[in-house]
């Protein structure tokens, strides 16, 4: 009996010590970066070069990388974050709604966008099925891999690229939606994330993978041979970064945020396959002739808020209906 009690007291003491030490977290001259997982290498480089500048000297920067939605939810639940780098606007807007990020987060000259990319088709070596445009995706027998747009926020870029391309080709809204139905009938598996989708494609499933140019480039860099084609009409993917309210109170965080648009930082993003947003850091990226954005109203794309509501509402959204028709 006595031994048992002793063990219990020691355990309680141990817990108390841990709790106490965890409570004394970061103090002074430190920034918390919470980002989605893809640009990790780029941020690693950016952070080390930032720490060599005067503004960044002696600043301790903690880094957290994970899926964009997961990270947003974690920050909403109280994770310390001064700079949030997520994969699409809605994730940042969720934090605005919770009062953690100021409404004017995208007020700077770049609208808070720190890097760009485009939706591309990854194909098999030599493109044996000759996939070039969106029409090829719905040819008989073609199997397309795309992440599930409900589990992967990033996959929504794929869907809107498909829709927008149809609109740009002159199709009506109804026809473009019909295309989405057709397209998803060609999707045999919807992985939960972009990285998993690439893995499954690399393993041999499917003829075409819908993904982002930066993923394809990065994969190639890391030794996974990825041959891709950029369709003429495609969507510009814009990745946002925001200063949180707590970040606004830290001069170091503001300096770091500003640094993300410096040429060093933009080059780091470019090295990882992104398209820089600062004009004179060109890397010879070919701009697709039919490039459009999520705000291209003439193609029925009226910004993420409206698009999310119309297409990706979990129950009433167009994609929810598409998914239902695919399965039944």
């Amino acid at each position, binding site marked *: *009996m006595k031994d*048992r009690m002793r*063990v*219990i007291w020691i*355990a309680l003491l*141990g*817990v108390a010590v*841990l*709790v106490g*030490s*965890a*409570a*004394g*977290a970061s103090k002074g001259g430190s920034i*918390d970066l*919470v980002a989605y*997982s*893809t640009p*990790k*290498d780029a941020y690693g480089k950016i952070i080390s070069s930032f720490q060599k500048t005067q503004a960044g000297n002696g600043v301790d920067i*903690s*880094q*957290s*990388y*994970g899926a964009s939605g*997961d*990270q947003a*939810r*974690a920050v*909403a*639940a*109280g*994770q*310390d974050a001064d700079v949030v780098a997520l994969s699409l606007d809605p994730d940042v807007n969720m934090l605005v709604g*919770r009062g953690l990020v100021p409404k004017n987060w995208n007020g700077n000259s770049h609208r808070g966008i720190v890097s760009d990319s485009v939706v591309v088709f990854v194909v098999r070596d030599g493109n044996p099925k000759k996939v070039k445009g969106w029409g090829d995706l719905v040819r008989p027998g073609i199997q397309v891999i795309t992440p599930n747009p409900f589990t992967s926020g990033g996959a929504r870029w794929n869907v809107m690229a498909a829709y927008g391309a149809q609109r740009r080709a002159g199709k009506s809204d109804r026809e473009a939606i019909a295309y989405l139905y057709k397209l998803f009938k060609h999707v045999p598996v919807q992985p939960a994330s972009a*990285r998993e989708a690439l893995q499954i494609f690399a393993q041999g499933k499917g003829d075409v993978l819908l993904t982002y140019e930066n993923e394809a480039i*990065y*994969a190639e860099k*890391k*030794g*996974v041979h990825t041959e891709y084609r950029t369709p003429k009409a495609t969507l510009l993917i814009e990745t946002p970064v925001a200063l949180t309210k707590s970040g606004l109170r830290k001069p170091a965080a503001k300096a770091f945020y500003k640094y993300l648009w410096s040429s060093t930082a933009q080059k780091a993003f470019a090295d990882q396959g992104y398209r820089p947003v600062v004009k004179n850091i060109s890397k010879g990226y070919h701009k697709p002739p039919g490039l459009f954005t999520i705000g291209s109203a003439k193609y029925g794309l009226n910004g993420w808020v409206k698009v999310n509501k119309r297409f990706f509402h979990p129950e009433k959204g167009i994609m929810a209906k598409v998914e239902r028709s695919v399965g039944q």
Partner: protein
Amino acid sequence: MSRYLLRLGALGYLALILLVPVGFVFYRAFQHGLGPAWDAVTSHQAVHALELTLLMAAIAVPANTIFGVVLALALVRTRFPGRGLVNAIVDLPLALSPVVVGLALFLLYGRGGWLGSFADHGLKILFAVPGMVLATMFVSLPFVVREVVPVLREIGTEQEQAAETLGASPFQTFWKITLPAIRWAVAYGVVLTTARAIGEFGAVSVVSGRIEGRTETLPLYVQAQFEQFNVQGAYAASVVLALIAIATVVGLRLVHPREEA
């Protein structure tokens, strides 16, 4: 005859479901030689992740073991109202997908949650070690209980009653009669609990905040390697986890040398 058939069936099933996959993990980890594998697991980040993982286990396993044995005794040797319900609740943690475990812990300890104000007073639970320990304890809770309960039922109370009539105190009875009788059950329970505690990814990932060098356990490190296309590193780190699990079983064998049944 039937002995060989059973052996064949068991080994065949094991080969397909367990041995080949495990072999594959080891193969992929060392595919390019011992060097790259070693490098992958001795980086600063990996070593810290390993330490954190071991810390999780060092807290969660003893806690769940003590809890498990005491609860098993209570469930089997005593009667109290709601016994059946408690018995069933103990297994529930497994039925929750890790996403939901994280969600529940967010709802409880997160901003605006029931106990969310702890964080305001400096007591960080989420995105720090305590939250991760809670998540680990949650997902590895049932094993010791589940192992011990059937054995306790099986052995009956005769010896314990005999000891009592001979004047042994309850604690002496427990220590000298019951505990030795359930030692295998406790041992296997500890093995399972340890394996789960070191290998848990989902729930710990959600509540940890994934802060590199601070709240990244080895399974989280494995995931991070996968995301960065360092699949070999992911497998190598998994081998470390596998070796810890194997070491637990081997340690068990050394402490309790096997008696052939």
